[in-house]
């Protein structure tokens, strides 16, 4: 007999408040929220500035007010004040001060009960995920608008609309916003929503830290953009010293904004790591985790270990600017190259921070929408880790022309090329995943396939750039611009789109419009390539990047690129319309529209506030598509079951059972036992068990031999296998009949689970079921917990007989 798991203790949230309680008393000025956020932010920032002025006055500085100092402290404390005011610290304050009524299980900030809850500090990972995605998409639109500004200026040689300085500001802000406020946090948003569900957890490990991470991002973004109110930063997103140190005050804004975006990212990464390590559902071993989780494990490690370096580099720039230290000032004994080393030691791993979660999304989407297991699951997981490790050894390939130590070039070139190996493993594994799959070309799948195409191009131009002589020629040209957009737009952004389309039904409970989705894909895909492909050529011809003017011979191509870039930008509006419209009016989504196995699809759409009533039991790998009856996990609900669409949509309804025939009247006195067996059908133990049963009460037996075993696709001679099965069945029936048992049977082609259900819901339903399998270590059926599923579904007594033919043979 198979043994049921011990009942898993129900989570301790039964007493949670249904609906957000009013926080912080009656007054909107004192309660957590936007009003308090504004005045606390202003108060913190203003007080900080006044205190610095007081200190400077006391220390005898001639001018108490310094714009740099005021910006540094005003922005920092203003941003902290914002997070305090919005209410990120309210709960912690209760803990810190040791208040006697401090409660550990406080869920008053958890979950969205109305749209207003999305505008508050919320500890629900699903709400935070959507907060991230919506916020970052707004930043994406802003960053995109800045890019269109760049393209407008570049549409013709000479000055069109902006001054050279403002042109620098446009592309600097474009890159900064896209990297720090769109790509990195929107992956955090998708992972926030999906990863805890995939793990079978109720939330992240630190829900309040999770909220704080999100709310730190907002002041970060506001700081970046408010630099346009003063003099914007113009030194590019790389903020190279000494350019940045002699730049306008906007550079101070940049260094502070990066700190908040970075702190947000580090806190999220620590949260993901703790969640993935400690919050997996029972049975969810590392090798059963979906690849998106693997990707986030690697990404989070990169963030935790890498991001402090950009924090360090920007602190040093800030110190050099504000305190006039000499880190990067050769006149004071500092070193300029040092900046690039520290900066790229983060910012190259950052490339993988911006790509690995996308790889995870692609693995999910390709496998689910081509109905095939991920090819080389372990290798993809390990290559993710390998990319993460190697990512820390390649930073100086950004510096081949910087004048750094020349011995560093060759090793960096070698390690950079080495990264192509794990990346290639992924690409080929994905191709093998969709090879001969049942491709369902949904919009998510189109974006995933488009990603494969564009990312390979971006990856290959990356290998060009790793080669020192090529790099020396193409450094700071449009070739590099083409490369980075092929990997960051054709790579990351395509995967973000794929992820949003894929999980949109889960997030909103509505289906998006496929036609508009496909229109969006084709517009994006075509105009993306038309925009960025010609840049390769421009770069090879020598057009420098980051310059507002260019030689007239590049004019035609640049005009073409600009036009395509505008259409590419407009294609985003199709997406925007589709998402907004579908969110409100879309068709109601079923729980599992893609018939996926991973856990997030086993709960309703959108998921319940606390995800799971009890931790799911994970019983198999996450991608066993094409294996009939395969299961990743068993999910139980205490409350009325949500409407689940399983791989077997609504079988015969209960009332449709055919009327009993005449023969049945005679036989109905006998207990009808259904025996399910294939390889073990002629096993001595099974026959002995049946004979024994026949001795105690009148029984009649129906034996079914479901033929489709796992790995059935590889059977070379189907006819011979069928014959062998039939022979085993015949032998069993003969033996049973000889023992006086009323026995009947057939070889069926369905998988065992479906075959049982066919019998149970058919014209002659059994009263009892006996399932005979190989010992559980070798049984494909047991691997997919057949016994328990049959028991759960049919509610009939199910006996499990284990037959070991090898042992029986040796006994004989």
């Amino acid at each position: 007999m198979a043994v049921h798991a011990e009942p898993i203790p129900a989570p301790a949230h039964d007493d949670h408040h249904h609906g957000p309680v009013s926080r912080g008393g009656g007054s909107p000025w004192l309660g957590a929220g936007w009003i308090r956020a504004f005045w606390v932010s202003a108060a913190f920032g203003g007080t900080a500035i006044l205190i610095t002025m007081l200190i400077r006055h006391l220390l005898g500085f001639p001018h108490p007010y310094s714009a740099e100092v005021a910006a540094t402290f005003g922005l920092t404390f203003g941003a902290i004040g914002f997070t305090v005011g919005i209410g990120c610290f309210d709960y912690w304050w209760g803990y810190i001060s040791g208040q006697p009524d401090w409660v550990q299980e406080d869920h008053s900030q958890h979950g969205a009960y109305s749209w207003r809850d999305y505008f508050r500090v919320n500890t629900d990972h699903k709400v935070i995920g959507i907060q991230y995605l919506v916020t970052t998409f707004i930043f994406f639109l802003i960053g995109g608008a800045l890019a269109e500004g760049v393209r407008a200026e570049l549409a013709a040689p000479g000055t069109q609309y902006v001054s050279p300085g403002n042109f620098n500001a446009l592309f600097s802000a474009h890159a900064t916003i896209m990297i720090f406020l769109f790509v990195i946090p929107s992956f955090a948003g998708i992972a926030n929503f999906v990863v805890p569900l995939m793990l079978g957890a109720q939330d992240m490990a630190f829900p309040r830290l999770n909220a704080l991470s999100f709310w730190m991002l907002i002041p970060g973004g506001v700081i970046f953009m408010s630099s346009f109110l003063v003099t914007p930063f113009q030194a590019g997103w790389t903020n190279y010293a000494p350019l940045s140190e002699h730049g306008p005050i906007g550079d101070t804004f940049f260094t502070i904004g990066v700190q908040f975006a970075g702190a947000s990212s580090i806190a999220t990464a620590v949260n993901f790591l703790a969640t993935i390590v400690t919050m997996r559902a029972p049975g969810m071993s590392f090798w059963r985790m979906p690849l998106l989780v693997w990707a986030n494990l690697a990404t989070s490690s990169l963030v935790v270990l890498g991001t402090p370096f950009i924090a360090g580099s920007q602190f040093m720039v800030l110190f050099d600017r504000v305190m006039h230290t000499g880190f990067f000032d050769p006149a004071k004994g500092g070193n300029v190259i040092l900046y690039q080393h520290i900066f790229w030691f983060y910012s190259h791993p950052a490339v993988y921070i911006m790509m690995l979660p996308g790889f995870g999304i692609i693995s999910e989407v390709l496998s689910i929408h081509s109905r095939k297991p991920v090819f080389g699951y372990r290798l993809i997981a390990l290559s993710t880790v390998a990319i993460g490790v190697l990512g820390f050894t390649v930073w100086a390939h950004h510096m081949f022309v910087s004048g750094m130590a020349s011995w560093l070039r060759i090793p960096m070139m070698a390690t950079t090329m080495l990264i192509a190996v794990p990346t290639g493993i992924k690409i080929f594994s994905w191709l093998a995943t969709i090879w001969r799959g049942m491709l369902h070309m949904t919009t998510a799948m189109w974006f995933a396939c488009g990603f494969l195409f564009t990312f390979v191009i971006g990856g290959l131009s990356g290998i060009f750039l790793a080669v020192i002589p090529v790099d020396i020629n193409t450094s700071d040209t449009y070739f590099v611009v083409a490369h980075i957009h092929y990997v960051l737009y054709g790579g990351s952004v395509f995967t973000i789109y794929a992820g949003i389309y894929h999980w949109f039904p889960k997030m909103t409970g509505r289906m998006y419009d496929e036609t508009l989705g496909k229109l969006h894909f084709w517009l994006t895909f075509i105009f993306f390539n038309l925009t960025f492909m010609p840049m390769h050529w421009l770069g090879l011809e020598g057009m420098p990047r980051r310059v507002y003017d260019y030689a007239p011979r590049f004019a035609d191509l640049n005009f073409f690129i600009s036009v395509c870039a505008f259409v590419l930008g407009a294609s985003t509006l199709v997406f925007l319309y589709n998402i907004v419209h579908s969110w409100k009016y879309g068709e109601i989504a079923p729980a599992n529209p893609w018939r996926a196995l991973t856990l997030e699809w086993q709960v309703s759409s959108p998921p319940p506030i606390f995800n799971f009533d009890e931790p799911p039991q994970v019983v198999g790998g996450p991608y066993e598509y094409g294996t009939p009856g395969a299961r990743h996990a068993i999910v139980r609900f205490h409350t009325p079951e949500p409407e689940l669409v399983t791989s077997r949509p609504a079988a015969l309804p209960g009332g449709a059972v055919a009327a009993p025939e005449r023969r049945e009247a005679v036989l109905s006195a006998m207990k009808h036992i259904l025996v399910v067996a294939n390889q073990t059908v002629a096993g001595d133990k099974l026959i002995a068990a049946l004979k024994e049963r026949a001795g105690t009460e009148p029984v009649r037996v129906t034996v079914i031999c479901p033929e489709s075993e796992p790995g059935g696709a590889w059977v070379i001679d189907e006819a011979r296998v069928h014959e062998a099965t039939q022979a085993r069945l015949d032998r069993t029936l003969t033996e049973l009949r000889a023992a006086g048992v009323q026995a009947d049977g057939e070889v069926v082609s369905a998988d065992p689970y479906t075959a049982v259900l066919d019998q149970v819901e058919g014209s002659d339903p059994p009263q009892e079921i006996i399932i005979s399998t190989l010992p559980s270590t070798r049984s494909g059926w047991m691997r997919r917990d057949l016994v328990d599923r049959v028991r759960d579904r049919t509610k009939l007594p199910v006996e499990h007989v284990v037959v070991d033919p090898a042992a029986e043979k040796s006994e004989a």
Partner: protein
Amino acid sequence: MSSHAATMEGDGPFVSTGEQQVSAYHESLLRSPVFLGMVMFIGSEIMLFGSFFTAFFYVRFSHPHYPFGGFEIPKTGTAINTAILISSSFTMHWALVSIKRNKRFGLVVGLGLTLIMGLTFLALQMREYHSLGFVPSDGAFPSTFFALTGLHGLHVLVGATLLSIAFVRSCRGKYSADEHLGLEVTGLYWHFVDVVWVLLFTVVYLL
């Protein structure tokens, strides 16, 4: 996959495996998300210090002698300060051991002493800054020196904040032999701050 078969050995599909016992409700310290989170946060902090040490060594080895630029830093006074900080790690440990044996006196006094020593360290450090005779803008060596010691000082301040929280809570009767995860985490952070200082003192002051 073979791993599935491996977990299925025994009498049924729901056989407990090692991983199954991992749950949000921690049994051991390393399985506690809070402790693990602090370990990883410290990993991140190590990298932050790493970036400043990188700057320090980069600048240091591009100059022939040390401290470059002809600056002098006091060793004796700082050695005393170092001793104070190291001692505070022991009192922290005493507090932790005390609460594990449910002795509240040791907890409160241990935390109090640790806090006082931490603040003393900060005060002496400020005094040292004042008496150095050079300021951060004087050159690359003062820059790296103030950045490293200042960053560390900031961490002592954060540690002292954590200690104050623990101190206030323990005075109000919180924590017990079974429930003192917050102390474990605070202690871990404090030891980290201590270890960083030992490294910093060795590299910047002694060598």
